[in-house]
C-alpha cells in the first residue's frame, strides 16, 4: 500500500515537473530571455565598476554579494546542524 502510494506521488510529481519544462525556451537560442542587456553590461563595464580583473570575483562579491553571503551561511548552518543532531545540542 505504501509502495503504491509513493509510486503514485512520484509519478504525479514527475508529470507536473515535465509539463513545466515543455514551455522552456530552446537551449542556446539567440533570443532567449537570459541573453539581454545585463550580460553585455557586465562584460563591458564590470571591470570599470568593480575594479576586479577576475570578472567572476567581481560578479559574486560585488553585484551578487548577498548571494555569496547566504552561501557561506550554509557552511555555518551545516556546522550548527551537526552540533544539534549528533552532539545533542551541546556546543563544544
Amino acid at each position: 500500500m505504501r509502495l503504491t502510494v509513493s509510486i503514485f506521488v512520484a509519478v504525479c510529481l514527475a508529470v507536473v515537473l515535465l509539463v513545466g519544462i515543455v514551455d522552456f525556451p530552446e537551449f542556446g537560442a539567440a533570443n532567449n530571455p537570459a541573453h539581454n542587456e545585463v550580460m553585455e553590461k557586465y562584460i563591458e563595464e564590470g571591470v570599470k565598476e568593480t575594479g576586479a580583473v577576475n570578472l567572476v570575483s567581481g560578479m559574486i562579491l560585488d553585484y551578487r554579494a548577498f548571494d555569496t553571503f547566504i552561501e557561506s551561511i550554509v557552511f555555518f548552518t551545516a556546522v550548527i546542524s551537526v552540533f544539534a543532531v549528533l552532539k545533542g545540542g551541546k556546543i563544544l
Partner: protein
Amino acid sequence: MTIIIQNVVRLIVPFILMFGAYVTVYGHVSPGGGFAGGTILAAALILERFVGINRKWSLNKSTCLKGVSFSLVGYGILKGIAFLEGAMHIELIHWPLGQPGALFSAGIIPLLNILIGLVVMMAFVLLFDLFNEDLAGEDH
C-alpha cells in the same frame, strides 16, 4: 602513521598553506577566490590531522566556531555598509577601486574574499574535528 609520512607532511603543509593564502588573497586578480582558497587551506590542516601531527597553532574547535561566526558578521557588516552606500548615495567610507589588476584594488572585494576563505577553512576543519572525535571515541 610512520615517521616518514609525518615528516613529509610536516615539510609540505606550509607550502600548501601558502598556496591557499595566495589563491585567496589574489582572488580578484587571477582565477580562484575565497571558496577555492579556503578549501585548500582546510585540506592542508586536515592532512595534518590525518597523519597525527599536533602543532601548537593548530585550530581547536572553539577557535573555529568563533572564527566562522565573526567572519560571517564581518562580511555582513562590510557588505551592508557598501550596499547602503550605493543604494542611498552616501559616502560613509570611501573604498578606492585602484588600478585594475593590482593587488590592492577592487575596493572591498579582497577583504570579502579573505573572510569567505576563513569561513570555509574553519567550517571544514570544525566538521572534520567533530566527526573525527566521534570515531575516535567509539574505537576506544
